[in-house]
Protein backbone atom coordinates (compact mmCIF):
# COMPACT_ATOMS: atom_id res chain seq x y z
CA UNK A 1 0.00 0.00 0.00
CA UNK A 2 0.97 3.61 -0.46
CA UNK A 3 0.56 6.00 2.44
CA UNK A 4 -0.56 9.57 1.90
CA UNK A 5 -0.75 11.45 -1.36
CA UNK A 6 2.03 10.39 -3.72
CA UNK A 7 3.90 13.16 -5.47
CA UNK A 8 2.37 16.04 -3.59
CA UNK A 9 3.42 18.79 -1.25
CA UNK A 10 6.17 18.54 1.28
CA UNK A 11 6.57 14.77 0.81
CA UNK A 12 7.98 15.44 -2.65
CA UNK A 13 10.35 18.03 -1.23
CA UNK A 14 11.44 15.78 1.66
CA UNK A 15 12.33 12.94 -0.68
CA UNK A 16 14.19 15.33 -2.96
CA UNK A 17 16.25 16.65 -0.03
CA UNK A 18 16.89 13.17 1.33
CA UNK A 19 17.92 11.98 -2.14
CA UNK A 20 20.44 14.83 -2.29
CA UNK A 21 21.65 13.83 1.18
CA UNK A 22 22.02 10.27 -0.13
CA UNK A 23 24.23 11.46 -3.00
CA UNK A 24 26.37 13.60 -0.69
CA UNK A 25 26.75 10.68 1.73
CA UNK A 26 27.63 8.35 -1.07
CA UNK A 27 30.18 10.80 -2.49
CA UNK A 28 31.76 11.04 0.97
CA UNK A 29 31.87 7.24 1.28
CA UNK A 30 33.51 7.04 -2.13
CA UNK A 31 36.15 9.55 -1.02
CA UNK A 32 37.00 7.55 2.08
CA UNK A 33 36.81 4.34 0.00
CA UNK A 34 33.93 2.96 2.02
CA UNK A 35 31.50 2.62 -0.85
CA UNK A 36 28.68 0.15 -0.35
CA UNK A 37 28.38 -1.88 -3.54
CA UNK A 38 24.93 -3.07 -2.46
CA UNK A 39 23.51 0.42 -2.67
CA UNK A 40 25.50 1.72 -5.60
CA UNK A 41 22.86 1.02 -8.30
CA UNK A 42 20.18 2.76 -6.25
CA UNK A 43 22.32 5.85 -5.79
CA UNK A 44 23.30 5.91 -9.47
CA UNK A 45 19.68 5.64 -10.63
CA UNK A 46 18.53 8.26 -8.19
CA UNK A 47 21.19 10.72 -9.29
CA UNK A 48 19.55 10.81 -12.73
CA UNK A 49 16.03 10.94 -11.28
CA UNK A 50 16.91 13.73 -8.81
CA UNK A 51 18.52 15.78 -11.56
CA UNK A 52 15.53 15.12 -13.84
CA UNK A 53 13.03 16.24 -11.20
CA UNK A 54 14.91 19.47 -10.46
CA UNK A 55 15.25 20.30 -14.16
CA UNK A 56 11.60 19.31 -14.70
CA UNK A 57 10.42 21.62 -11.90
CA UNK A 58 12.21 24.59 -13.40
CA UNK A 59 10.94 23.71 -16.86
CA UNK A 60 7.38 23.58 -15.50
CA UNK A 61 7.84 26.96 -13.83
CA UNK A 62 9.18 28.44 -17.03
CA UNK A 63 6.27 26.99 -19.00
CA UNK A 64 3.67 28.32 -16.57
CA UNK A 65 5.29 31.76 -16.61
CA UNK A 66 5.02 31.64 -20.36
CA UNK A 67 1.37 30.62 -20.66
CA UNK A 68 -0.29 32.47 -17.75
CA UNK A 69 -0.01 35.99 -19.29
CA UNK A 70 -1.25 34.67 -22.64
CA UNK A 71 -4.25 32.89 -21.13
CA UNK A 72 -5.22 35.79 -18.86
CA UNK A 73 -4.83 38.37 -21.65
CA UNK A 74 -7.07 36.30 -23.90
CA UNK A 75 -9.69 35.93 -21.18
CA UNK A 76 -9.73 39.61 -20.32
CA UNK A 77 -9.31 40.84 -23.91
CA UNK A 78 -7.17 43.64 -22.51
CA UNK A 79 -3.42 43.92 -22.86
CA UNK A 80 -1.95 43.81 -19.37
CA UNK A 81 1.64 44.21 -18.41
CA UNK A 82 2.18 41.18 -16.22
CA UNK A 83 5.00 41.26 -13.76
CA UNK A 84 5.59 37.54 -13.63
CA UNK A 85 9.16 36.50 -13.27
CA UNK A 86 10.65 34.11 -15.79
CA UNK A 87 10.12 31.16 -13.52
CA UNK A 88 7.15 31.30 -11.19
CA UNK A 89 8.12 28.21 -9.26
CA UNK A 90 11.75 29.16 -8.95
CA UNK A 91 11.88 30.48 -5.45
CA UNK A 92 8.76 31.63 -3.57
CA UNK A 93 6.73 28.40 -3.50
CA UNK A 94 9.94 26.51 -2.82
CA UNK A 95 10.70 28.66 0.21
CA UNK A 96 7.10 28.28 1.41
CA UNK A 97 7.28 24.46 1.07
CA UNK A 98 10.68 24.34 2.71
CA UNK A 99 9.45 26.45 5.63
CA UNK A 100 6.45 24.11 6.03
CA UNK A 101 8.71 21.08 5.92
CA UNK A 102 11.03 22.58 8.53
CA UNK A 103 7.97 23.42 10.65
CA UNK A 104 6.73 19.83 10.48
CA UNK A 105 10.23 18.55 11.24
CA UNK A 106 10.54 20.80 14.29
CA UNK A 107 7.02 19.86 15.37
CA UNK A 108 7.93 16.16 15.32
CA UNK A 109 11.00 16.79 17.45
CA UNK A 110 9.13 18.96 19.93
CA UNK A 111 6.54 16.19 20.26
CA UNK A 112 9.34 13.68 20.74
CA UNK A 113 10.85 15.73 23.59
CA UNK A 114 7.45 16.15 25.27
CA UNK A 115 6.73 12.41 25.09
CA UNK A 116 10.22 11.62 26.43
CA UNK A 117 9.80 14.04 29.35
CA UNK A 118 6.38 12.61 30.21
CA UNK A 119 7.80 9.09 30.14
CA UNK A 120 10.61 10.18 32.47
CA UNK A 121 8.10 11.68 34.94
Amino acid at each position, binding site marked *: *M*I*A*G*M*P*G*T*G*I*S*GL*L*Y*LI*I*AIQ*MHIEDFYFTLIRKNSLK*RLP*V*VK*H*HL*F*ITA*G*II*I*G*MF*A*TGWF*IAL*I*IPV*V*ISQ*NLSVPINFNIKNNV*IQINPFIFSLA*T*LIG*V*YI*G*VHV*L*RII*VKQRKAE
Partner: protein
Amino acid sequence: MASQLTVMVPAYNEKVSIEDTIRSLKMQTVQAKEIIIIDDCSTDGTGDIASSMGVTVLRPPSNTGSKAGAQNFALKTVQTEFTMAIDADTTLAPDAIEKLLLSFDDPKLAASCGFVIPRYVITLWERGRYIEYLLAFTWYKPIQDYFEKPLISSGCFSMYRTNILKENGGWPEGTLAEDMDLTWSFYEKGYKVRFIPEAVCYPIEPHSYHFMSKQLRRWSHGFVQNVMLHWKGILEIPYLRSFIAVSLWDAVFASIVYLFVLPILAILFASPILLIGYVIDIPVVLVPVLFKAIERKEVWLALMSLPSFFVLRTVNGFFLLEALYTELLIKKTFLVYEKGH
Protein backbone atom coordinates in the same frame (compact mmCIF):
# COMPACT_ATOMS: atom_id res chain seq x y z
CA MET B 1 17.73 -21.83 2.11
CA ALA B 2 14.79 -22.82 -0.13
CA SER B 3 13.97 -25.82 2.03
CA GLN B 4 13.61 -23.35 4.87
CA LEU B 5 10.75 -21.46 3.26
CA THR B 6 6.99 -21.80 3.64
CA VAL B 7 4.75 -19.79 1.34
CA MET B 8 1.27 -18.93 2.53
CA VAL B 9 -1.55 -17.63 0.36
CA PRO B 10 -4.67 -16.36 2.16
CA ALA B 11 -7.66 -16.79 -0.13
CA TYR B 12 -11.34 -15.98 0.06
CA ASN B 13 -13.38 -16.62 -3.09
CA GLU B 14 -10.37 -16.41 -5.40
CA LYS B 15 -11.25 -19.10 -7.93
CA VAL B 16 -10.46 -16.77 -10.83
CA SER B 17 -6.88 -16.02 -9.80
CA ILE B 18 -5.67 -18.76 -7.44
CA GLU B 19 -4.52 -21.06 -10.25
CA ASP B 20 -2.19 -18.41 -11.72
CA THR B 21 -0.79 -17.66 -8.28
CA ILE B 22 0.00 -21.31 -7.50
CA ARG B 23 1.44 -21.88 -10.97
CA SER B 24 3.70 -18.86 -10.58
CA LEU B 25 4.90 -20.18 -7.20
CA LYS B 26 5.67 -23.56 -8.74
CA MET B 27 7.67 -21.97 -11.56
CA GLN B 28 10.07 -20.18 -9.23
CA THR B 29 13.82 -20.65 -9.65
CA VAL B 30 13.87 -21.53 -5.96
CA GLN B 31 11.13 -23.81 -4.67
CA ALA B 32 9.52 -23.42 -1.25
CA LYS B 33 9.36 -26.39 1.10
CA GLU B 34 5.61 -25.99 1.37
CA ILE B 35 2.90 -23.87 -0.24
CA ILE B 36 -0.10 -23.39 2.04
CA ILE B 37 -3.38 -22.01 0.73
CA ILE B 38 -5.55 -20.75 3.55
CA ASP B 39 -9.04 -21.18 2.17
CA ASP B 40 -10.87 -18.74 4.44
CA CYS B 41 -14.22 -20.56 4.03
CA SER B 42 -14.64 -19.65 0.37
CA THR B 43 -17.96 -20.47 -1.27
CA ASP B 44 -16.66 -20.62 -4.86
CA GLY B 45 -14.51 -23.75 -4.69
CA THR B 46 -11.15 -21.96 -4.27
CA GLY B 47 -9.96 -24.70 -1.89
CA ASP B 48 -10.82 -27.49 -4.34
CA ILE B 49 -8.91 -25.79 -7.16
CA ALA B 50 -5.88 -25.38 -4.89
CA SER B 51 -6.08 -29.02 -3.70
CA SER B 52 -6.11 -30.26 -7.28
CA MET B 53 -2.81 -28.44 -7.88
CA GLY B 54 -0.98 -30.39 -5.20
CA VAL B 55 -0.52 -27.74 -2.52
CA THR B 56 -1.50 -27.86 1.16
CA VAL B 57 -4.93 -26.39 1.83
CA LEU B 58 -5.93 -25.28 5.32
CA ARG B 59 -9.48 -24.24 6.13
CA PRO B 60 -10.30 -22.44 9.40
CA PRO B 61 -13.52 -23.56 11.17
CA SER B 62 -15.11 -20.21 10.29
CA ASN B 63 -14.18 -17.17 8.19
CA THR B 64 -11.41 -15.29 10.04
CA GLY B 65 -12.65 -11.92 8.79
CA SER B 66 -9.29 -10.60 7.61
CA LYS B 67 -6.14 -11.44 5.72
CA ALA B 68 -4.15 -11.21 8.95
CA GLY B 69 -6.54 -13.63 10.65
CA ALA B 70 -6.19 -16.19 7.86
CA GLN B 71 -2.40 -15.89 7.82
CA ASN B 72 -2.18 -16.25 11.59
CA PHE B 73 -4.29 -19.39 11.39
CA ALA B 74 -1.61 -20.98 9.18
CA LEU B 75 1.41 -19.49 10.92
CA LYS B 76 0.99 -21.90 13.85
CA THR B 77 1.86 -24.78 11.51
CA VAL B 78 4.98 -23.17 9.99
CA GLN B 79 8.28 -24.78 11.04
CA THR B 80 10.65 -23.27 8.46
CA GLU B 81 13.10 -20.40 9.07
CA PHE B 82 11.34 -18.13 6.59
CA THR B 83 7.68 -17.45 5.86
CA MET B 84 6.44 -15.72 2.75
CA ALA B 85 2.99 -14.25 2.33
CA ILE B 86 1.53 -13.54 -1.08
CA ASP B 87 -1.99 -12.49 -2.04
CA ALA B 88 -4.16 -14.97 -3.94
CA ASP B 89 -4.45 -12.52 -6.85
CA THR B 90 -0.71 -11.97 -7.18
CA THR B 91 1.83 -13.65 -9.44
CA LEU B 92 5.60 -13.42 -9.23
CA ALA B 93 8.50 -12.95 -11.62
CA PRO B 94 10.27 -16.33 -11.87
CA ASP B 95 13.20 -15.28 -9.67
CA ALA B 96 11.25 -13.20 -7.13
CA ILE B 97 11.55 -15.68 -4.24
CA GLU B 98 15.24 -16.21 -4.93
CA LYS B 99 15.90 -12.45 -4.84
CA LEU B 100 14.04 -11.99 -1.56
CA LEU B 101 15.75 -14.96 0.08
CA LEU B 102 19.17 -13.55 -0.81
CA SER B 103 18.44 -10.42 1.21
CA PHE B 104 18.24 -12.37 4.48
CA ASP B 105 21.98 -12.26 5.19
CA ASP B 106 21.48 -10.10 8.28
CA PRO B 107 20.06 -11.84 11.38
CA LYS B 108 18.34 -8.58 12.39
CA LEU B 109 16.38 -8.50 9.13
CA ALA B 110 12.75 -9.30 9.94
CA ALA B 111 11.10 -8.73 6.58
CA SER B 112 11.86 -8.11 2.95
CA CYS B 113 9.53 -6.93 0.22
CA GLY B 114 9.65 -6.46 -3.53
CA PHE B 115 8.59 -4.23 -6.41
CA VAL B 116 4.85 -4.23 -7.13
CA ILE B 117 3.43 -3.69 -10.63
CA PRO B 118 -0.26 -4.14 -11.52
CA ARG B 119 -0.83 -7.20 -13.71
CA TYR B 120 -3.53 -5.54 -15.79
CA VAL B 121 -3.36 -1.88 -16.82
CA ILE B 122 -6.60 -1.27 -18.70
CA THR B 123 -9.16 0.78 -16.77
CA LEU B 124 -8.73 4.29 -15.39
CA TRP B 125 -8.23 2.90 -11.87
CA GLU B 126 -5.68 0.30 -12.89
CA ARG B 127 -3.80 2.92 -14.88
CA GLY B 128 -3.77 5.32 -11.94
CA ARG B 129 -2.48 2.59 -9.69
CA TYR B 130 0.17 1.61 -12.27
CA ILE B 131 1.62 5.13 -12.22
CA GLU B 132 1.33 5.30 -8.43
CA TYR B 133 3.35 2.09 -8.07
CA LEU B 134 5.96 3.04 -10.65
CA LEU B 135 6.43 6.34 -8.79
CA ALA B 136 6.50 4.89 -5.29
CA PHE B 137 8.65 1.84 -6.01
CA THR B 138 11.10 3.70 -8.25
CA TRP B 139 11.46 6.95 -6.33
CA TYR B 140 10.31 6.74 -2.69
CA LYS B 141 10.96 3.17 -1.69
CA PRO B 142 14.64 2.94 -2.75
CA ILE B 143 15.35 6.15 -0.81
CA GLN B 144 13.55 4.70 2.23
CA ASP B 145 15.58 1.52 1.81
CA TYR B 146 18.88 3.42 1.54
CA PHE B 147 18.18 4.78 5.01
CA GLU B 148 16.98 1.32 6.12
CA LYS B 149 13.39 2.42 6.71
CA PRO B 150 11.00 1.21 4.00
CA LEU B 151 7.63 2.57 5.10
CA ILE B 152 5.78 -0.70 4.51
CA SER B 153 6.72 -4.25 3.71
CA SER B 154 3.83 -4.74 1.26
CA GLY B 155 1.28 -7.31 2.37
CA CYS B 156 0.77 -8.63 -1.16
CA PHE B 157 4.30 -10.00 -1.35
CA SER B 158 6.72 -10.10 1.59
CA MET B 159 9.06 -12.58 3.22
CA TYR B 160 9.64 -12.79 6.96
CA ARG B 161 12.01 -14.46 9.40
CA THR B 162 9.54 -16.84 11.04
CA ASN B 163 10.84 -16.60 14.61
CA ILE B 164 10.64 -12.78 14.58
CA LEU B 165 7.18 -12.94 13.04
CA LYS B 166 6.01 -15.35 15.72
CA GLU B 167 7.69 -13.28 18.44
CA ASN B 168 5.53 -10.39 17.19
CA GLY B 169 2.43 -12.55 17.58
CA GLY B 170 2.04 -12.97 13.83
CA TRP B 171 0.24 -10.39 11.72
CA PRO B 172 -1.53 -7.75 13.84
CA GLU B 173 -5.33 -7.90 13.58
CA GLY B 174 -6.14 -4.61 15.30
CA THR B 175 -5.85 -2.35 12.24
CA LEU B 176 -6.94 -2.49 8.63
CA ALA B 177 -3.37 -2.23 7.32
CA GLU B 178 -1.72 -5.26 8.86
CA ASP B 179 1.38 -4.88 6.66
CA MET B 180 2.04 -1.35 7.88
CA ASP B 181 1.28 -2.35 11.47
CA LEU B 182 3.73 -5.26 11.28
CA THR B 183 6.49 -3.22 9.61
CA TRP B 184 6.32 -0.44 12.20
CA SER B 185 6.21 -3.03 15.03
CA PHE B 186 9.44 -4.54 13.68
CA TYR B 187 11.15 -1.14 13.70
CA GLU B 188 9.97 -0.43 17.24
CA LYS B 189 11.57 -3.71 18.36
CA GLY B 190 14.87 -2.84 16.67
CA TYR B 191 14.55 -5.11 13.64
CA LYS B 192 15.26 -4.22 10.03
CA VAL B 193 13.12 -4.33 6.89
CA ARG B 194 14.46 -4.26 3.31
CA PHE B 195 13.07 -3.39 -0.10
CA ILE B 196 14.45 -5.51 -2.96
CA PRO B 197 13.49 -3.88 -6.28
CA GLU B 198 14.67 -6.87 -8.32
CA ALA B 199 12.00 -9.09 -6.76
CA VAL B 200 8.89 -8.25 -8.78
CA CYS B 201 5.28 -9.21 -8.17
CA TYR B 202 2.13 -8.59 -10.20
CA PRO B 203 -1.13 -8.22 -8.25
CA ILE B 204 -4.56 -7.66 -9.79
CA GLU B 205 -5.58 -4.13 -8.83
CA PRO B 206 -9.17 -2.85 -8.45
CA HIS B 207 -10.57 -2.36 -11.94
CA SER B 208 -13.63 -0.28 -11.05
CA TYR B 209 -14.52 2.58 -8.70
CA HIS B 210 -16.62 0.18 -6.62
CA PHE B 211 -13.62 -1.98 -5.74
CA MET B 212 -11.09 0.85 -5.71
CA SER B 213 -13.19 2.75 -3.15
CA LYS B 214 -13.17 -0.29 -0.85
CA GLN B 215 -9.40 -0.56 -1.10
CA LEU B 216 -8.81 3.17 -0.65
CA ARG B 217 -11.11 3.23 2.38
CA ARG B 218 -9.26 0.29 3.93
CA TRP B 219 -5.82 1.76 3.23
CA SER B 220 -6.72 5.26 4.43
CA HIS B 221 -8.27 4.02 7.66
CA GLY B 222 -5.38 1.59 8.11
CA PHE B 223 -2.86 4.42 7.76
CA VAL B 224 -4.63 6.65 10.29
CA GLN B 225 -5.16 3.72 12.69
CA ASN B 226 -1.47 2.86 12.57
CA VAL B 227 -0.39 6.45 13.16
CA MET B 228 -2.70 6.54 16.21
CA LEU B 229 -1.38 3.20 17.45
CA HIS B 230 2.35 3.65 16.88
CA TRP B 231 3.01 7.39 17.04
CA LYS B 232 4.90 7.35 20.33
CA GLY B 233 7.19 4.52 19.24
CA ILE B 234 7.75 6.01 15.81
CA LEU B 235 8.99 9.30 17.27
CA GLU B 236 12.20 7.50 18.30
CA ILE B 237 12.90 6.08 14.84
CA PRO B 238 14.90 8.44 12.59
CA TYR B 239 13.75 8.84 8.98
CA LEU B 240 10.62 6.75 9.57
CA ARG B 241 9.16 9.54 11.75
CA SER B 242 9.88 12.06 8.98
CA PHE B 243 8.38 9.86 6.24
CA ILE B 244 5.22 9.38 8.27
CA ALA B 245 4.95 12.99 9.44
CA VAL B 246 5.08 14.40 5.91
CA SER B 247 2.70 11.72 4.61
CA LEU B 248 0.21 12.68 7.29
CA TRP B 249 0.68 16.39 6.64
CA ASP B 250 0.10 15.94 2.91
CA ALA B 251 -2.85 13.63 3.58
CA VAL B 252 -4.52 16.57 5.33
CA PHE B 253 -3.39 19.62 3.39
CA ALA B 254 -2.96 18.27 -0.12
CA SER B 255 -6.40 16.64 0.17
CA ILE B 256 -7.97 19.94 1.28
CA VAL B 257 -6.24 21.79 -1.55
CA TYR B 258 -7.35 19.27 -4.20
CA LEU B 259 -10.90 18.84 -2.98
CA PHE B 260 -11.77 22.37 -1.85
CA VAL B 261 -9.18 25.13 -2.35
CA LEU B 262 -8.41 24.65 -6.07
CA PRO B 263 -12.00 24.23 -7.32
CA ILE B 264 -13.33 27.05 -5.09
CA LEU B 265 -10.60 29.46 -6.19
CA ALA B 266 -11.14 28.51 -9.84
CA ILE B 267 -14.86 29.28 -9.50
CA LEU B 268 -14.39 32.46 -7.41
CA PHE B 269 -11.89 33.96 -9.82
CA ALA B 270 -13.56 32.38 -12.85
CA SER B 271 -10.12 31.23 -13.88
CA PRO B 272 -9.66 27.60 -14.98
CA ILE B 273 -5.93 28.25 -15.16
CA LEU B 274 -5.85 27.77 -11.39
CA LEU B 275 -6.73 24.11 -11.95
CA ILE B 276 -3.18 23.69 -13.17
CA GLY B 277 -2.50 23.21 -9.45
CA TYR B 278 -3.72 19.62 -9.81
CA VAL B 279 -0.78 18.77 -12.03
CA ILE B 280 1.81 21.35 -10.97
CA ASP B 281 4.03 18.61 -9.51
CA ILE B 282 4.08 16.66 -12.75
CA PRO B 283 7.92 16.47 -12.93
CA VAL B 284 8.04 14.76 -9.51
CA VAL B 285 5.70 12.12 -10.89
CA LEU B 286 6.78 11.92 -14.50
CA VAL B 287 10.56 11.69 -14.14
CA PRO B 288 10.72 8.58 -11.90
CA VAL B 289 7.82 6.98 -13.77
CA LEU B 290 9.48 7.47 -17.16
CA PHE B 291 12.79 6.26 -15.77
CA LYS B 292 11.19 2.92 -14.87
CA ALA B 293 8.92 2.85 -17.92
CA ILE B 294 11.93 3.15 -20.26
CA GLU B 295 13.59 0.24 -18.45
CA ARG B 296 10.39 -1.82 -18.82
CA LYS B 297 9.80 -0.64 -22.39
CA GLU B 298 6.40 0.72 -21.37
CA VAL B 299 6.83 4.43 -22.15
CA TRP B 300 3.62 4.70 -24.20
CA LEU B 301 1.62 2.86 -21.53
CA ALA B 302 3.03 5.15 -18.84
CA LEU B 303 2.29 8.34 -20.80
CA MET B 304 -1.24 7.20 -21.60
CA SER B 305 -1.84 6.26 -17.95
CA LEU B 306 -0.49 9.48 -16.45
CA PRO B 307 -3.80 11.43 -16.40
CA SER B 308 -5.46 8.56 -14.51
CA PHE B 309 -2.95 9.00 -11.71
CA PHE B 310 -4.13 12.55 -11.04
CA VAL B 311 -7.74 11.36 -10.91
CA LEU B 312 -6.85 8.54 -8.51
CA ARG B 313 -4.84 10.90 -6.31
CA THR B 314 -7.71 13.35 -6.00
CA VAL B 315 -10.18 10.56 -5.17
CA ASN B 316 -7.63 9.23 -2.66
CA GLY B 317 -7.72 12.66 -0.99
CA PHE B 318 -11.42 12.22 -0.24
CA PHE B 319 -10.86 8.85 1.45
CA LEU B 320 -7.92 10.16 3.45
CA LEU B 321 -9.95 13.10 4.77
CA GLU B 322 -12.86 10.79 5.54
CA ALA B 323 -10.53 8.44 7.46
CA LEU B 324 -8.94 11.31 9.39
CA TYR B 325 -12.36 12.71 10.29
CA THR B 326 -13.83 9.34 11.31
CA GLU B 327 -10.86 7.90 13.18
CA LEU B 328 -9.33 11.04 14.70
CA LEU B 329 -12.20 13.45 15.25
CA ILE B 330 -15.27 11.35 15.93
CA LYS B 331 -13.21 8.37 17.19
CA LYS B 332 -15.13 5.80 15.20
CA THR B 333 -12.86 2.91 14.30
CA PHE B 334 -13.53 1.26 10.98
CA LEU B 335 -12.52 -2.41 11.13
CA VAL B 336 -14.56 -4.13 8.44
CA TYR B 337 -12.12 -5.83 6.10
CA GLU B 338 -13.42 -5.56 2.54
CA LYS B 339 -11.56 -7.02 -0.40
CA GLY B 340 -10.48 -4.58 -3.09
CA HIS B 341 -11.37 -6.76 -6.05
